């Protein structure tokens, strides 16, 4: 798919606003109300309301059977979801921190991702795995990773990273509809952010990038929490007379690359922003797509990646912010990139 959906750019003045976590919860509630096959399972998703409060009151509304608390057994939980999915249910698994998908990689990668293909189409695995990613909470190296590149690299998985409340709801609804396993990576720092969320069951289609902002000088591609920072940076750059296009792929696999390549062809400058460590990260793929395409010939400057340092996330606040891209760094990198004369 190569179409770009800009209708999701809601006016800030829109009537209905809610937080990112409320949007996730609303999507789950609507899907569960519409379809008995949909249920949620995970650690402390019940009366506790979820480690990040996302499931909230769903336990009270849908009961212990469909908002199912589990023991601390990530491999078992995901495996149970895979089994429930092949047997006709539509499970939504919550993994408390995406770091703990490490415990469940066999069921995610060797089972869920491959079953449909490997069994010749005999079975489908319509499941959703939601997990919070990222740093910024002082939880240190084992609770702060951004592992999207791993999942995006696995054939058979679809991977989304919602960057706004509207997409948090829309992408999740689309993920639940999808007959394939979909990994939904939500950034912890976004849960409390709010924004417009359209009424009703509006889907954000999987595999469609969003152009968040149009500008002629520079193309910024950003994912997850970095989309907001890129938009802030673009606003600041605009005051300096630099107009940036900001593109949010939203779905990392399958990737809708056309809008990115079109924009880079126009601007000649590409800056790629992610929180994850740069080395072999997702933005390497975006860089590769650019230099494999005719857009390469239009580059006025080398592609610039602005990524997390190749280090585990440290605990101390100053160190934690120092190792991932912050607003100033993004603005500085963009300014530098504009100064390059080819």
């Amino acid at each position, binding site marked *: *798919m190569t*179409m770009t*959906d800009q209708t999701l750019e809601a006016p800030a003045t829109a009537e209905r606003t809610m937080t990112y976590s409320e949007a996730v919860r609303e999507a789950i509630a609507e899907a569960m109300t519409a379809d008995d096959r949909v*249920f949620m399972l995970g650690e402390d998703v019940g009366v506790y309301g979820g480690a990040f409060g996302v499931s909230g009151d769903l336990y009270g509304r849908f009961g212990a*059977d*469909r908002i199912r608390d*589990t*023991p601390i*057994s990530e*491999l*078992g*939980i*995901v*495996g*149970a*979801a*895979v*089994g*429930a*999915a*092949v*047997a*006709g*249910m539509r*499970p939504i698994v919550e993994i408390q921190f995406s770091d703990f998908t490490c415990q469940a990689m*066999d*069921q995610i990668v*060797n*089972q869920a991702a491959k*079953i*449909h*293909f*490997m*069994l*010749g*189409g*005999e*079975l*489908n695995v*319509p499941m959703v795995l939601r997990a919070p990613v990222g740093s910024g909470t002082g939880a240190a190296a084992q609770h702060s990773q951004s592992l999207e590149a791993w999942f995006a690299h696995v*054939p*058979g998985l*679809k991977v989304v990273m919602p960057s706004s409340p509207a997409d948090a709801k829309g992408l999740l609804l*689309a993920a639940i*509809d*999808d*007959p*394939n396993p979909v990994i939904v990576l939500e950034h912890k720092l976004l849960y409390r952010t709010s924004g417009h969320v359209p009424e009703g069951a509006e*889907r954000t*289609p*999987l*595999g*469609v990038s969003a152009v968040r902002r149009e500008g002629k000088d520079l193309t910024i591609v950003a994912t997850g929490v970095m989309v907001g920072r890129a938009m802030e940076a673009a606003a600041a750059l605009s005051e300096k007379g630099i107009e940036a296009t900001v593109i949010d792929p939203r779905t990392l696999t399958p990737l809708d690359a056309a809008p990115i390549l079109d924009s880079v062809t126009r601007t000649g400058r590409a800056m790629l922003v992610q929180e994850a460590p740069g080395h072999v990260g997702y933005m390497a793929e975006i860089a590769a797509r650019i230099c494999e395409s005719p857009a390469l010939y239009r580059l006025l400057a080398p592609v610039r990646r602005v990524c997390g340092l190749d280090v585990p996330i440290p605990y101390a606040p100053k160190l934690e912010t120092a190792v991932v891209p912050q607003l100033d760094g993004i603005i500085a990198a963009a300014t530098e990139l504009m100064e390059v004369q080819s």
Partner: protein
Amino acid sequence: MTTTQTTADPRVGDDPDKARHVLATMWRIRRFEEAVDDLFARGLMHGTMHLSIGQEGSATGSCLSLRTDDAITSTHRGHGHCIAKGASLERMMAELLGKETGYCRGRGGSMHIADTATGNLGANGIVAGGIPIATGAALAYKMQGLDRVVVSFFGDGASNEGAFHEALNLAAIWKLPVVFICENNKYGMSFSTEFSVAVAHIADRAAAYGMPGVTVDGNDVEAVNDAVSAAVDRARGGGGPSLVEAETYRWKGHSKSDKNLYRTREEIAEWRLKDPIVRFEKLVKERGTLSESEVQQIRDEAMQAIKHAVVAANQAPDARADDILDSVFAATTIVSEVTA
């Protein structure tokens, strides 16, 4: 088809129809795997394979306790489970030969055969990989209000994987309709249960999950069927999961590369004398349930069925490569709406 045996019924060795079915199933498994072994030896089949020759009793006795709409998850050593649950020999053979008519369209091979029509949710190349999946399927059936039971087959070695532990605990706390069947053939590849576990029986591990655990002679079809039928009835009745350990033995090497350095010829010879098929034939003849001629006919039919399967599978078209990129994901209505 699978003929179901419940605890209510007479023992399988006393019922001519059941006995015929059981014996025919065991012979089909034996002959199928001998044919596979032969095709590999002659270089007519590629990849790898894990034969269950000598273990036919546990697959057959267990699946006899199940209805067609009950489900199983199987293992890398899954031909027996697959056949006992009622799969087509021709489609299985076609799969192993990489044919388009195979159960996986030639994409999975021996370790990945699934057949929804007969309730086989799939063999698995990952040791213990099917155990959490079986647990989840049982959860689904329970939530759907169906009275289906799921049986999960796995080996002694698999009981040392974390997946075994997590899945059995989930099944126990949720009282799911699942029966865990450990086919203890004494070895996980080359590693003997003498060294790989510190318990006398794998069934002892049921204690960690508050579920019943029982050990039976896996080469005694009736004993296996009795134990599994009891566990299945319990599961169907809402009593929750059980762990059944069937003690048996693998006659052949673990896979092609096995030089059998970890066990003695004597041990293998000893177990060959405990052949579950010979034993069942003797039993039904002694009890007068089946005559020698009936038994011979069953043997012949099994041989014919396999020969036919090999011929038909060989004639089938090779697996298609042209749609491979379109086969990774199941078609998604939502996306097509968008692109439209």
